[in-house]
C-alpha cells in the first residue's frame, strides 16, 4: 500500500486520537474533580458526571457518523473513526449516556459519605476510583458492554489473585514498560490512545501497589514477637491488597480489546493474560528471594517462609494460565465474545478454587506456634477486608445481567480473597516439606516451588545488601584500610564495651571505606566518641542521609578526620514503625539540615534537634516521598 495512504491514515488517526485524548482528559478531569472535597465543587457531582458523559457521547456519536469504509466523506472536516463498527450510532449514544449516569450514581453515592481527604485505606474511596477505571470502553454494543464489564471484573479478580502475592517493585517497572509495549503493539483503534493513557495510569498504580505490597510482605516476614508489629503490617497489607486489586482491575480492563470480531484477538488476549501472569510469577519469585535475603541474618525459618510463599503464588498463577489457555481454544462461534468472557470467568474462578484448596490443606495442618496464629489472624482480617471490597465491586458491576454467572463471580471473588489470605498464613506456618498429596497438578506446584526455593537460597547466600556478612568477603589481599578498621574496633571496644557494633567491615565497592554498623541504643555515644577521641578525631561530617530498605530505615553518616586524614562510614538501622534517632547536631552543626531533610523525605524523627521541620517540601505535605510505600499525593496523569 502506498506511503501516502498510510500517512493520510496516520493523520486521520492522530486527529481522532487527539479528540479521544481530549474526551478522556475531560473525563479524567471530571474524575479528579469529583475526588476533591465536595466543598470545592459548587454543582452537584452527578450533574457534572452526566454532562461530561453527554459531551463524550456526542463526540463519539459524531465519530460514529463517519461511513463504514476507509474513504471518509469528502469535505467532512471532522474525520470520524474509520474502523468498521457494526453498531448504529444512536444506540451508542443512548448507552453512553445511561452508563455515564450509572457510573456517576456509583461515584456520587460513596463520595457522599467520604468527606474528602485522601486516606489510603478508606474502602469507599477505593471503590470510587475503581468505578472510574472500570467503565467499559464506550464504543461497544449493549450486550457486549455488559459482558465486557463483567468479563473485566472477573478477569481482574483472577489477575488480582495472582498479583496479590507480593511482587518485586523493580520487576513491575519492567513489566509496566513491556505491558506498555503490548498496548503499543495492539492494532490502533479509536479509544486506544485514551485507553493507552488510562493504561499508563494503571501501570503506574500497579507499580505503586506492588511496591506497597513488597513493603507489606517484607514487614510481615520480620518475625517479631510483639503483636503491635503484626497489627500494623496487617493494616498495610490490607491497603496494599486493595490497591493492587484496583490496579489489576484497571489494567486488565484496558488490556481487553474492545469487542473485536476476529477470534485471534481473543486468543491473543488470553495469551497476554497468561504472559502477564507469568511475568507476575517471575517477578514474585525474585522479590521473594530478595525478601528471603533481607530477613534477619541467618534465620532458617525466614528463608523457609519465603520459599513457601513463592510456592503458593506459583501454584495459583500456573493454574490461572493453564485454564485461560483452555478457555482460549473454545470453539469460535457467532457469540465468540460471550465465549471468551465465559472462559475468562471460568478460568478465574477455577484458579481461585485451586488456590483455596491448596490453602485449605495448608491451613488444616495445626501448628501450635503462637506467632503463626497471630499472623494468620492478621492475614484473615486482611482477606476479609479484601473480600468485602471485592463483593461490593461485584455487586456494582452486576446490576444489569441477572443469572448465576454473576453470583458465581461474586462467590469466586470471595473465595479468591480468602484463598490468598489462607495461603499466606499457611506458608508462614508450615515448613515447605508437606507437598499437598493428590493430583498431578500438585506435583507441578512442587516443582515450581523447588525452583523458587533454590533461587531464594542462592540469593540469601550472597552478601545481602541490607544485612552484610559479618566478616569482609575474603578477597585475595587484606584491603589497605584493614588496619584502620581494626584500630577503630579496638579503640571502641576498649572504651565503650563490646556490644556496640552490630557489624564492622571494609566496603570493597566504595574505595575500601571502613564501615561501622552501630546499634541504635549506642548510636549517639559512639558518634560522640568518634568525634572527641584523640586517636579517631572525626571532626568533619561529610554526609548524612536516610534510606528506606523495605523492612527498616537506615541512616548513613560519612565522617572524615582532618588530623589523621582518614574517613569512616557509620550506619545505623532504625525500626520502620517509629523511627526515632538522637540528633548529631550537638556534635556537628553540619548535620542540621541533612537531618531535617531525612525527617522531611523519610519521616525519621531526630530527638533534641534544634528545629526539626520540613525543609524541602511544603508544610502541608502529606506523607514522606522517599518511603517505598509512598502514594503520590496527586495522581500523575
Amino acid at each position, binding site marked *: *500500500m502506498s*506511503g501516502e495512504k*498510510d*500517512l493520510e*491514515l*496516520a*493523520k486521520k*488517526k*492522530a486527529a481522532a*486520537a*487527539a479528540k479521544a485524548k481530549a474526551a478522556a482528559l475531560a473525563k479524567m478531569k471530571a474524575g479528579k474533580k469529583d475526588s476533591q472535597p465536595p466543598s470545592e465543587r459548587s454543582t452537584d457531582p452527578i450533574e457534572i458526571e452526566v454532562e461530561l458523559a453527554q459531551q463524550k457521547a456526542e463526540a463519539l456519536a459524531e465519530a460514529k457518523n463517519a461511513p463504514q469504509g476507509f474513504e471518509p466523506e469528502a469535505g467532512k472536516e471532522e474525520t470520524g473513526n474509520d474502523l468498521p463498527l457494526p453498531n448504529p450510532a444512536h444506540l451508542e449514544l443512548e448507552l453512553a449516556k445511561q452508563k455515564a449516569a450509572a457510573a456517576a450514581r456509583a461515584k456520587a453515592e460513596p463520595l457522599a459519605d467520604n468527606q474528602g481527604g485522601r486516606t489510603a485505606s478508606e474502602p469507599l474511596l477505593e471503590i470510587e476510583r475503581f468505578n472510574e477505571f472500570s467503565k467499559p470502553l464506550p464504543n461497544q454494543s449493549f450486550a457486549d458492554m455488559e459482558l465486557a464489564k463483567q468479563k473485566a471484573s472477573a478477569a481482574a479478580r483472577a489477575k488480582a489473585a495472582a498479583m496479590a502475592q507480593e511482587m518485586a517493585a523493580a520487576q513491575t517497572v519492567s513489566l509496566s*514498560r513491556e505491558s*506498555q*509495549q503490548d498496548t*503499543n*503493539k495492539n*492494532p*490502533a483503534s479509536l479509544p*486506544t*490512545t485514551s485507553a*493507552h493513557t488510562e493504561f499508563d495510569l494503571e501501570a503506574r498504580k500497579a507499580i505503586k501497589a506492588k511496591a506497597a505490597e513488597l513493603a507489606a510482605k517484607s514487614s510481615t516476614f520480620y518475625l517479631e514477637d510483639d503483636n503491635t508489629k503484626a497489627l500494623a503490617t496487617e493494616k498495610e497489607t490490607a491497603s496494599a491488597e486493595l490497591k493492587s486489586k484496583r490496579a489489576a482491575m484497571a489494567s486488565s480492563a484496558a488490556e481487553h480489546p474492545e469487542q473485536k470480531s476476529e477470534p485471534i484477538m481473543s486468543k491473543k488476549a488470553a495469551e497476554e493474560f497468561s504472559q502477564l501472569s507469568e511475568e507476575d510469577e517471575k517477578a514474585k519469585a525474585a522479590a521473594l528471594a530478595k525478601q528471603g535475603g533481607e530477613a534477619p541474618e541467618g534465620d532458617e525459618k525466614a528463608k523457609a517462609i519465603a520459599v513457601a510463599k513463592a510456592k503458593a503464588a506459583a501454584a495459583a498463577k500456573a493454574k490461572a494460565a493453564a485454564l485461560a489457555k483452555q478457555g482460549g481454544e473454545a470453539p469460535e462461534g457467532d457469540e465468540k465474545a460471550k465465549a471468551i468472557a465465559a472462559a475468562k470467568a471460568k478460568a478465574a474462578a477455577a484458579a481461585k478454587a485451586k488456590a483455596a484448596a491448596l490453602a485449605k490443606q495448608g491451613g488444616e495442618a495445626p501448628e501450635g506456634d503462637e506467632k503463626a496464629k497471630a499472623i494468620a489472624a492478621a492475614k484473615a482480617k486482611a482477606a476479609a477486608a479484601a473480600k468485602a471490597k471485592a463483593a461490593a465491586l461485584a455487586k456494582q458491576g452486576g446490576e444489569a445481567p441477572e443469572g448465576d454467572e454473576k453470583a458465581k463471580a461474586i462467590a469466586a471473588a470471595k473465595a479468591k480473597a480468602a484463598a490468598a489470605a489462607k495461603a499466606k498464613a499457611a506458608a508462614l506456618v508450615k515448613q515447605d516439606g508437606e507437598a499437598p498429596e493428590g493430583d498431578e497438578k500438585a506435583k507441578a506446584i512442587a516443582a515450581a516451588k523447588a525452583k523458587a526455593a533454590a533461587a531464594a537460597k542462592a540469593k540469601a547466600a550472597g552478601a545481602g545488601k541490607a544485612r552484610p556478612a559479618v566478616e569482609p568477603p575474603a578477597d585475595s589481599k587484606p584491603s589497605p584500610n584493614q588496619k584502620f578498621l581494626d584500630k577503630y574496633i579496638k579503640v571502641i571496644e576498649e572504651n565503650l564495651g563490646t556490644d556496640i557494633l552490630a557489624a564492622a567491615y571494609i566496603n570493597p565497592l566504595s574505595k575500601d571505606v571502613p564501615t561501622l554498623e552501630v546499634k541504635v541504643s549506642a548510636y549517639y555515644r559512639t558518634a560522640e566518641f568518634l568525634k572527641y577521641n584523640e586517636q579517631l578525631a572525626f571532626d568533619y561530617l561529610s554526609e548524612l542521609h536516610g534510606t528506606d530498605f523495605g523492612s527498616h530505615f537506615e541512616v548513613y553518616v560519612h565522617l572524615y578526620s582532618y588530623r589523621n586524614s582518614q574517613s569512616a562510614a557509620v550506619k545505623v538501622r532504625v525500626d520502620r514503625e517509629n523511627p526515632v534517632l538522637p540528633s548529631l547536631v550537638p556534635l556537628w552543626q553540619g548535620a542540621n539540615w541533612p537531618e531535617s531533610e531525612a525527617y522531611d523525605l523519610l519521616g525519621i524523627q531526630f530527638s533534641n534537634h534544634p528545629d526539626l521541620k520540613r525543609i524541602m517540601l511544603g508544610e502541608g505535605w502529606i506523607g514522606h516521598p522517599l518511603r517505598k510505600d509512598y502514594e503520590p499525593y496527586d495522581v500523575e496523569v
Partner: protein
Amino acid sequence: MIGLAKGFSYTLKNLTRKKVTYDYPNEPLPLPDRFRGIQKFYPEKCIVCNQCSNICPTDCIQLTGKKHPDPSKKGKIIDTYDINFEICILCDLCTEVCPTEAIIMTNNFELAEYSRDQLFKDLVWLDENDEHIRRVNKP
C-alpha cells in the same frame, strides 16, 4: 585612589575595543554540528522497536505501530509518533539508542509556540523538520 584610576583606565580602553555580541535575530547563531536541537523523524526507517520511548527519561515519546500492510513483508511500520515538547529535555538519548537512526537531531532550537497544544509534534511535523540536520549522529 590608584585602584579606582586603574579601573577607569580599563573601562575607557574597552570603549574602543571590538564588540563581542551576536546580532542574533538578524543573523543566525553560529552553532557547532553536534548541537542538540529538535528531532527529525524518518517514518520509513522506523521499525517500531520502542527503544526510544523506553530510554526517554521524561517519557515524552508516544508511538504506535501497526502490522505491515502487504503480507509479503513481516515486521511493523510506524503509525503515529508524537513527541511532547513540553517535557522533552533534548537529551539526545533517543537518537543514541535508535538502531536504524530513524530519529536524529537537527540544529534548530527555535520552538516558541502560542499555545501549549502545539507543542505536541506528530509524525508529519517531525518528518518535515529537515533543515540543519546533524551530519554526525552517533559518537
